[in-house]
């Protein structure tokens, strides 16, 4: 590969990807054990999108995400323990137990509270970009969406204004081929629901292998540079796949076995990148295994901590309906 990153960056990206993978796995088992309340929309299989898009951002570059936010949050730097506590509804959670799995975030690291209305985050991300433009800084916003969001009215209203006003946003459409249970084939007439429709809004686009973290990162680098230079938005359509179902109770009976085999077994973003960094001699396998063990330990400890983390007092229920100040 022509632009292979420094060893430090390659390993840094792998660390993030492995953390996301293991975090989601840990949650999966906690749910199976009946330990955790609510539902769960997991990002397993989409780690390269999160890390490739967000690895080079500054803290002041905000990130907007969806009902499937864990990977994005981890990649943006939200604390694992605070995320895990949030999953248990603890007051020690990143949203004090007010948010839960679909609203995690930490604005101190630029991770906006995740948005569980499909397409809901798009105009809001544009608003943050407008604010950056009015403040005359060169911060950018990365806004994640799924393929399903491209058929929402909010998508088209947002893209129209973002294109017209050249707002510094990068839209990362994770096209995982299904909007909940419904195939993109039932939702859009052609192959690339985000990229195909970008041109009519005057927004450049790229279709990218969303399971190749280096390809995602290179596309993100180009888009971020354009936005910082005042040249406006980019739409990146990242082709990827959920390893699991849409949500906790979805067994994915609608997906062909061959399709699952291709994406999950032959094109796994974490395993592929692991192979790449070992081949490039970034690190020895023994050293990498030690790092992986360290990540697993961190996640296990966060989960153990979260199980008994403090539950909120009842008076928390009526806090922050209106802002109570910092």
């Amino acid at each position, binding site marked *: 590969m022509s632009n292979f990153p420094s060893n430090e960056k390659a390993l840094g990206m792998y660390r993030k990807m492995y953390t996301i993978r293991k975090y989601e796995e840990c949650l999966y088992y906690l749910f199976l054990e009946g330990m955790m309340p609510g539902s769960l929309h997991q990002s397993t299989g989409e780690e390269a999108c999160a890390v490739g898009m967000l690895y080079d951002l500054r803290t002041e570059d905000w990130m907007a995400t969806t009902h499937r936010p864990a990977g994005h949050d981890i990649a943006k730097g939200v604390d694992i323990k605070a995320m895990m506590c949030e999953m248990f509804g603890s007051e020690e959670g990143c949203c004090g137990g007010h948010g839960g799995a679909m609203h995690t975030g930490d604005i101190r690291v630029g991770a906006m509270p995740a948005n569980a209305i499909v397409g809901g985050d798009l105009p809001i991300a544009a608003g*943050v970009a407008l604010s950056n433009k009015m403040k005359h800084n060169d911060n950018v916003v990365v806004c994640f969406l799924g393929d399903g969001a491209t058929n929402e009215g909010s998508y088209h209203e947002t893209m129209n204004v973002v294109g017209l006003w050249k707002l510094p946003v990068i839209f990362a459409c994770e096209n995982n081929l299904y909007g909940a249970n419904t195939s993109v084939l039932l939702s859009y007439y052609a192959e690339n629901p985000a990229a195909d429709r970008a041109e009519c809004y005057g927004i450049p686009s790229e279709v990218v292998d969303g399971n190749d973290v280096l390809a995602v990162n290179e596309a993100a680098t180009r888009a971020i540079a354009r936005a910082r230079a005042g040249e406006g938005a980019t739409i990146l359509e990242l082709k990827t796949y959920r390893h699991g179902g849409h949500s906790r109770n979805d067994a994915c009976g609608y997906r062909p076995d061959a399709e699952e085999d291709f994406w999950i077994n032959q094109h796994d973003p974490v395993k592929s990148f692991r192979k790449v960094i070992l081949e490039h001699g970034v690190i020895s396998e023994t050293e990498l295994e030690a790092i992986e063990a360290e990540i697993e330990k961190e996640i296990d400890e966060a989960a153990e901590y979260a199980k008994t983390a403090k539950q909120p007092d009842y008076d928390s229920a009526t806090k*922050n309906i209106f802002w109570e100040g910092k």
Partner: protein
Amino acid sequence: MIMAKMTIAEAYKQAIRNEMLKDDTVFCIGEDEDIPGGMGGSFTVTKGLGEEFGANVAIEGEDGKLHLKGCDDVGYNRVFNTPISEIVTAGLCVGAAMHGMKPVADVHYGDFLFCMMDQLVNQAAKMCYMSNGQVHVPMVMRAPVGATSRGAQHAQSLESFFCHVPGLKVICPSTPYDAKGMMTEAIRDPDPVMVFEHKLLYSGKTMANAVGEVPEEDYTVPFGKAAIRREGKDLTIVANMLMWYRAMEAAEELEKEGISVEVIDPRSLVPFDYETILASICKTHKLMIVHEDHYTGGWGATLGSYVAENAIMDLDAPIVRLAALDTPIPFSPKLENYVVPSTAGILEAARKLAKM
């Protein structure tokens, strides 16, 4: 104190302009905010602000064609003329507000708020709560309401919808003094504020007494404090916007008949000043509630139940509620006047209640 006589529309404009002069983070956004040769929103409130503070516009040049101005870098504007796209207009406000700006947005007609309901109800109202105070949304959304012979989709009074959403503040100023003071308060407020403005009160043409003296100086009218528009001892009428003007007309008539009516304008629906109303009931022991919003689920229903829960022993008669009938608002002026509470209707109901 230097005072100036002005309309409600002028008072709103003065409040917004003053805040824009003082605070760089305040900006206006919406359809037709200030298009050269245009109206300035539907009701003139934002006219001139784009010219003064910078806006994206198309202006006729010497070649007789339209030329764009303020479009190369919109970041230098303080007034944004949007396409007819309610979702992104509201969403831009939510995002910008979360990022430290103070957007003041509007729609031509309040009815169009329904096109942006997700952004108002799921986003603006819930961001502070869901994030447990990590972010907050200091935005203002202005919405003209009230029936004016334009049919069912340009006529609704929508205040009660939004009172049902925790996280939104809801106000309905209806004098020039309150318009300036409450708009200033709304812009400075750290949370999303829905401002409902009655179309028939903007200019003083329909209600001559809707024009009034406004201090030139900086002042605010705090939310959650009702205004006693008229003191009385026999009967309390709680009514907002156009309806309290009609209640005042009725009260003047009743005075001649020896019935003394207290008229209270809540001004702010969220937060709501129950105390002033309970204190009035302690004095008059009779309560009538009038609003142009529909009867079922209207804010008056909540007020009525609150009084029943907390002060029923102070009442000498059942609570009387007048509201728009539960029909879409018809176009025909004759039917519209029948559906919306009238001065005559208030008078008749008040007379009956006074005798109970």
